[in-house]
């Protein structure tokens, strides 16, 4: 078997090293999977920002789309859609989000809820001109 052939070519230290590196890789997956917490909630409708609020303050908001009013709730640093006029309620089923880059979408009502991080200076030049 291929695995035993590989194992035969390894000393005990090789195996220990590979095992440690494998564990480190697993740890890296876990650590990176978490990601940084977001700072602001931004709601977009057809590419335009229609609502923006800090994640830290608990509140709820009513957003109006083509189908009607969608209710958005911010609680304990998490955002979720609590009620929506759309037929399948997929957006409510997406649960709550808190991390930077995560999003909730209600396609029928044309709403996109995004989490953004802290404001940062954008690099003014691109990769090639560096």
């Amino acid at each position, binding site marked *: 078997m291929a695995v035993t052939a590989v194992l035969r*070519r390894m000393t005990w*230290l090789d195996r220990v090293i590979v095992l440690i590196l494998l564990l480190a890789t697993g740890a890296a997956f876990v650590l*990176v999977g978490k990601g*940084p917490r977001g700072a602001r909630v931004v709601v977009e409708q057809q590419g335009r920002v229609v609502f923006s609020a800090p994640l830290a303050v608990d509140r709820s908001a009513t957003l109006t789309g083509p189908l009607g009013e969608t209710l958005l709730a911010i609680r304990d640093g998490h955002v979720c859609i609590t009620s929506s006029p759309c037929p399948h309620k997929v957006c409510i089923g997406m649960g709550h989000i808190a991390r930077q880059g995560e999003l909730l979408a209600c396609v029928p009502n044309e709403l996109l809820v995004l989490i953004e991080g802290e404001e940062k200076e954008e690099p003014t030049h691109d*990769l090639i001109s*560096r």
Partner: protein
Amino acid sequence: MTSSAVDPQQLVRVRRRIFLALFTALAVALHTLEFLLPSPAPWFRLGFANILTLTALFLYGGRAAWVVTLARVGIGSLVVGNLFSPGFLLSLCGGVTATAMMTAARSLFGRHIGPVGVSALGAVGHAAGQLLIAWLVLVRHPGLWQLFPFFLLFALGTGIANGVAADLLLDLLRSHAAFQPAADEPK
């Protein structure tokens, strides 16, 4: 190998030089071949050239490994045509980190560590070094680190594969006539 008229010390030296030149040439060829292969991201490389660095390390020691790596990156980049470009910088820093880790591991653990372990360490070092320089010089975006675990896993796989390849090559070379007087190799 009946060259009794030549000073044996000099014979060993010349042989060593010729084999190092061969290793470097092969490493350059593999470096170039790898550049031609399509890859999903610039740093997902198979690292075949590292096989020759490993072989040099195990046959001739750390200095030989450095020679093969640095010459490979320099000449390989000339051949490929990306000398001093971002891609070159990535190769160079990856290569330097990998070789530093491999020579350190070899001198630390000596006979206990085999080509597979050294190669796995080198591949992971290569991955970390490349990503670090990519982050420092090219894309200062935290999203880059999202890539790191995948990169690490990939590097570990190729590292083990390259280590096995290097071990096979070492077996082949050690049974060759030029390596028969085993006394002249630093262990």
